[in-house]
């Protein structure tokens, strides 16, 4: 019921405002496209298959980078969260590196990982790695002590302690980290693909800018928004399910 009126209502309103800006602004159409031209642009890019190919390329790259960072982030997060002594020495470095935009590393990324798929994947990896790492570490460090007590009481030792107790206990914390990481990584996908990639939505943006096709540029931008939204929905469904099962109120 809700979505049947809100979403279309919302998009119609956005459309109208956009039209208004175009009409009142008196911009050159080549510089600021009308919604209608963008709709045609969608048709054009879908028609020649470019859009879906780029979406597919981006998604593949995205998932490779994201999954590597999830695996690495959770793995190191578990270790570092558990051995607080090590974490205390790693933490300052992480805190210094974290505020740095992944794109800033580009020259070094090219040096170490070459061109082609790699830079975009590495940038997505960097973007997603820290949220995953930090949320895993904090999930471990804030694990409800009662679980550990139960484990001790029932004689559960490593490695069972890890798989039976710790991992499931930190799951919700990690899940919310994964959610944040997904958002961040998707935002940086564009930047990643804008540099040194020859396909994908980010490249589409660059390509359309290079071809001065601002209508298709807008198509690329909106596509990124929609796909990002779908991804976000996907994770939040998973997250909600976990939260419900674990009995966490949110």
């Amino acid at each position, binding site marked *: 019921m809700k979505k049947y009126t809100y979403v279309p209502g919302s998009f119609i309103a956005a459309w109208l405002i956009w039209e208004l800006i175009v009409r009142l602004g008196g911009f050159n159409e080549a510089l600021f496209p009308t919604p209608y031209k963008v709709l045609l642009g969608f048709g054009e890019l879908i028609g020649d298959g470019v859009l879906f190919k780029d979406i597919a390329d981006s998604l593949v790259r995205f998932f490779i980078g994201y999954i590597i960072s999830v695996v690495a982030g959770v793995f190191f997060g578990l270790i570092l969260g558990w051995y607080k002594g090590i974490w205390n020495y790693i933490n300052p470095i992480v805190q210094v590196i974290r505020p740095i935009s992944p794109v800033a590393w580009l020259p070094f990324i090219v040096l170490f990982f070459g061109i082609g798929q790699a830079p975009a994947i590495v940038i997505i990896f960097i973007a997603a790695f820290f949220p995953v790492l930090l949320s895993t570490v904090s999930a471990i460090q804030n694990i409800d002590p009662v679980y550990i007590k139960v484990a001790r*009481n*029932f*004689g559960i030792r490593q490695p069972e302690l890890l798989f039976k107790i710790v991992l499931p206990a930190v*799951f919700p914390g990690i899940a919310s980290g994964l959610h944040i990481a997904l958002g961040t990584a998707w935002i940086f996908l564009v930047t990643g693909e804008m540099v040194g990639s020859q396909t994908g939505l980010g490249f589409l943006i660059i390509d359309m800018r290079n071809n001065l096709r601002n209508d298709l540029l807008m198509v690329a931008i909106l596509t990124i928004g929609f796909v990002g939204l779908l991804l976000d929905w996907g994770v939040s469904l998973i997250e909600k399910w976990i939260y419900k*099962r674990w*009995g966490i109120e949110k």
Partner: protein
Amino acid sequence: MGYISVRNAHKEFMKDGEPLTILEDINLDIEKGEFICLLGPSGSGKSTLLNAIAGFELVTSGSITIDGEEVKAPQLRYVTVFQNYGLLPWRTVESNIELGLESKKVPKEERPAIIDKYVKMVGLDHARNRYPAELSGGMQQRVSIARALAVDPDIIFMDEPLGALDALTRINLQDEISRICREEGKTVVFVTHDIEEAVVLADRVVVLAANPGCVQTIIPVNIIDRTDRTSPNFVNIRNHIFEQFQLAKEDKIEFYI
């Protein structure tokens, strides 16, 4: 020397860099099969004492032995039921109850029968495949009790297991805990700050005073029908403990608030 024997137990915690005595010179003997309630105001060290006996946090000095053996770590033979139930939310009722059986290396084929027995004992047959988040507080605490019983422990420790439940649910669970533990012949150490609860459950009530925690008095409870909370005997003992409690209250009023 009793089955559980606490001798001159002291416990200190560091607080703002200074040692603070929480338990002072506790002496306590508990017989096999006894149901003991530790009753005391907040901060009197009930949980600390229970944790020490259960092996979670050892005392600073003095000794605690169970069955003649020094307590050094928690054991599967002595199971604790926590106030917030300590259920694993990612496991169903059945699977939570199975937890201890796994460590105990009970063969897979024997487990269903055991689980079945205890699930029925706590009246959760209809909810055996549900997850903790889908259960009310009272039902969760039942699962926790079933999980403890399933490993057939010698001793059950309970730390305010009913503290978070509403009055009527409490009454029901008190009756159930009393019945089950006596039927199964378990030794129980039960922490509470509710006088009536202590009277309903305990064979002996150990009243702790606070600041630092010490045993103020030990009151034996001899009641035949424990489910009748209106019998003169029940009311007498309740009143007696109440007076003891008031004593503790009078002189340290600011502390409890």
